[in-house]
């Protein structure tokens, strides 16, 4: 099986891998929407969606009711509804761009997944090989470059809808996303200053960042720098990054482009049915990828605990020579971290009220950006002193 796969043409291999990742991300995004409804319900003291069940699942003794209770079938029902319901296009929109916008939303959302390493295994020589569709050296830069294209879909949707609320939503989206992109990019530079020694070939690879967080425990008295996750080394960077991530993914308290209280539905006011659901899948994909990048940068990627790298765990579990199982284990560790982060996203959403637009701009330009610059300078000097 594996041989057959590796004998295929690289393009076909890439296609199969890409489809596999999309097949994982799409349901993941759908599951996130369900999780969102459940988390909001539990936070508000409600049971949440727990009714839908196909009759043949009701016959299964324990599993059926359990799935019903967590609302698994509502997820399927929602998906089917979006797929099959009538899709009216309002008469006053620019039809071409109106249809283009959700497609443009999906493309960057799925493209960024390709450069995010999501697991690792050990090769015969005992080296850690990251699992990624394209483990390119530009890594993070590619994520930033492609994911910021996502703003075009919001602008396009807002403009093509040809009515005032979507238009305002689109304008807000462009201003907000550009503002927070700056702080976000500045906040991760200390990480790359730390991992790139002067005079050696530089890298922006995310796998490299994880490698720097995979040091084993040296001794109990002097544990060594290598095992520390960057969230402990650079808490301010992590803070700026996660706040900007909230803004970049249009999540509450920064969901200015949508803000259903003052803009009806914001940029997607005129959308319905499948196109609307594409926007949502794109938003959740951005969230998943964003959480993944955050995990890789600051939470040690696929390493289970600080000072406990994957290689050590593989030694304990005798998985060093079972790359398949180790790969699956590392993916599981990574996904658990991502899931926790996504829960934090939802938790914050149902806690904090939306900022006003002027507050969003003030936080972005007058507080987060100076903080990011000061943070960068402080770490640049500190790293220069340490590495000298």
């Amino acid at each position, binding site marked *: 099986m594996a041989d057959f796969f590796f004998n295929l043409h690289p393009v076909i291999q890439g296609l199969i891998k890409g489809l596999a990742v999309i097949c994982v991300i799409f349901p993941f995004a759908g599951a996130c929407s369900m999780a969102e409804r459940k988390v909001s*319900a*539990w936070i508000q*003291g409600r049971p949440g969606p727990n009714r839908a069940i196909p009759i043949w699942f009701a016959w299964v003794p324990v599993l059926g009711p359990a799935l019903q209770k967590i609302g698994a079938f509502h997820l399927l029902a929602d998906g089917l509804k979006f797929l099959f319901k009538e899709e009216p296009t309002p008469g006053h929109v620019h039809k071409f761009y109106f249809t283009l916008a959700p497609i443009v939303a999906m493309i960057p959302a799925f493209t960024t997944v390709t450069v995010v390493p999501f697991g690792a295994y050990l090769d015969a020589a005992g080296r850690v090989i990251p699992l990624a569709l394209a483990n390119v050296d530009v890594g993070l830069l590619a994520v930033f470059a492609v994911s910021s294209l996502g703003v075009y879909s919001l602008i396009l949707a807002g403009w093509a809808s040809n009515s005032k609320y979507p238009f305002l939503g689109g304008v807000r989206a462009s201003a907000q996303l550009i503002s927070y992109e700056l702080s976000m990019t500045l906040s991760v530079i200390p990480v790359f200053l730390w991992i790139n020694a002067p005079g050696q070939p530089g890298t922006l690879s995310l796998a490299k960042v994880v490698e720097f967080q995979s040091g084993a425990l040296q001794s109990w008295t002097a544990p060594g720098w290598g095992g520390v996750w960057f969230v402990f080394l650079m808490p301010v960077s992590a803070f700026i990054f996660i706040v900007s991530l909230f803004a970049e993914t249009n999540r509450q308290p920064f969901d200015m482009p949508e803000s259903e209280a003052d803009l009806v539905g914001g940029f997607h006011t005129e959308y319905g049915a499948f196109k609307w659901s594409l926007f949502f899948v794109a938003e959740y994909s951005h969230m998943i990828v964003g959480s993944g990048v955050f995990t890789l940068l600051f939470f040690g990627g696929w390493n289970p605990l600080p000072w406990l790298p994957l290689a050590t765990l593989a030694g304990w579990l005798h998985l060093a020579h079972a790359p398949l199982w180790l790969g699956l284990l590392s993916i599981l560790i990574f996904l658990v971290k991502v899931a926790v982060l996504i829960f934090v996203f939802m*938790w914050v959403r149902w*806690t904090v009220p939306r900022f006003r637009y002027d507050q969003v701009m003030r936080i972005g330009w007058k507080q987060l950006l100076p903080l990011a610059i000061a943070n960068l300078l402080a770490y640049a000097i500190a790293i220069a002193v340490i590495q000298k």
Partner: protein
Amino acid sequence: MAVVPLARKPLTFAERTYVPQILGGLKITIKRFFQPTETLQYPEQRPEIPKNYRGVPTLVRDPNGREKCVSCQLCEFVCPPKAIRITPGEIAPDAPTAHVEKAPLAFDIDMLRCIYCGLCQEVCPEEAIFLQNQYSMSGYTRAEMVNNKDRLYELGGTLPDQHYKWDKKKAAEVHGAAHH
């Protein structure tokens, strides 16, 4: 009047960053997250109906199974939205309750008009109509939403009687102590 001077404290740095407040909010929501829900799972669990609840108006029988309504039509006339329509009828002379003389031939309450005010219950001299526990009425057609006499007795059932007015009257007639 004592004057208490209160200093307007400036916000501390931590307060101005807004972060401790957000963390406090997160603490509250995560506590709520793990508490049990308070939702009543409606069709399976039913709410407890308080005493004197004014639900759907119904007709009742007395413990002997006699229909209490004598079709005096007071409820029909007092009904503010004119939801009640009664066709009065006579009781057959050979029936055991022939001395009551009248009973409704037809008794319709249009539940699309009824406002659940309870005036019919209040005005009824025979204690024959009661607004009971029934709180959910549904139907696919307008005709289904009109409760006819059979349906009203089915909903109402039998309620305890304190007076047995007509039994007393009959007894008085038999013993020659009639006071009318």
